[in-house]
């Protein structure tokens, strides 16, 4: 897991820090979730030194709060890993257990580099998956990560394809 979340080595940064850490999960039962609740939550996360957070709300958030959330990773008050918000309704069943949902596997940066080298691709040439995709949200995909999707195939047994998260 650590390796999966470690960014590739660059010249100035020979020993990159894994981008993963303690996570705080909170259930919010307020009737409407807006800027105030989200701010409280972010402040709580950063004061307690959590890396990222998941908030589960009973109702969907207001538009303003969503807008704040989109810019959250760059914000000074929010936690480093960003905040994910789920509506309770979306988590009642585990969607990845459904038989029609194929296996998704997150690739580490090294595996991604190998993949691109093997097929002589640039990452922009890969098919894409949105980070707002339900499965992508489930796995908490971040922009630029690549997932391997393994489907079963009648002719080949199993068939792997790759998606670049945007």
């Amino acid at each position, binding site marked *: *897991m650590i*390796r999966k979340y470690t960014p590739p080595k660059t010249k100035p940064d020979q020993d990159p820090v894994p981008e*993963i850490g303690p996570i705080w999960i*909170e*259930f919010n*039962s307020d009737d409407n979730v807006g800027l105030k609740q989200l701010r409280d939550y972010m402040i709580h996360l950063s004061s307690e030194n959590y*890396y990222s957070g998941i908030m589960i709300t009973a109702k969907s958030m207001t538009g303003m709060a969503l807008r704040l959330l989109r810019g959250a990773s760059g914000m000074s008050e929010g936690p480093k890993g960003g905040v994910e918000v789920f509506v*309770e309704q979306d988590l009642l069943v585990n969607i990845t257990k459904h038989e029609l949902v194929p296996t998704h596997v997150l690739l580490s940066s090294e595996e991604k580099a190998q993949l691109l080298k093997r097929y002589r691709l640039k990452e922009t040439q890969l098919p894409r998956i949105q980070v707002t995709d339900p499965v992508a949200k489930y796995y*908490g995909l971040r922009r630029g990560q690549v997932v391997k999707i393994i489907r079963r195939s009648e002719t080949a047994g199993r068939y792997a394809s790759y998606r670049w998260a945007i």
Partner: protein
Amino acid sequence: MHDNFSNIFFDKRRCQPLFVYLSLPPPTLRRTYTCAATMADDRSNYTPDMIRMWRVYRTVKEMCKDRVSSRYVQAHSRSDTNNYIQGYEILEEECQISLSEFSSKFGLESGAPKSVPTISMAQSLVGLTASQPLAAQLLVQAFRRHDPKVHPPKDQTRPGSRP
């Protein structure tokens, strides 16, 4: 003409497609899903709100567990497992927590109908397993918003829930 129609995909005598077996993997490979609705728990004892919270809780645990994807690690880099840490390490039992356990853990008046459950604090989990030098402990905690320990109680009842 259709009577003589023979197709490699259909066995006329059995009247079923031959590729049925191919389209489904053998039972050992099929993923099984234990449904959250177990008959062992008498549902009438719990509020719908409680049942809802319980299902969400289980999914969240599974979600954190899946982000590790330890299955992949085992399958693909057996020689390399020491370099991986199972980050959010969550036991299978925690994902499979039963409704009665859940309500006794989080419900204030567990099992009592007409009472709205309030989840207090769920301290679970769990440190590191491998020897990688990661300063921060990876842990998962879940709690209900109106926990008096964390937030001063504003409103104990949950709006929108049925009595």
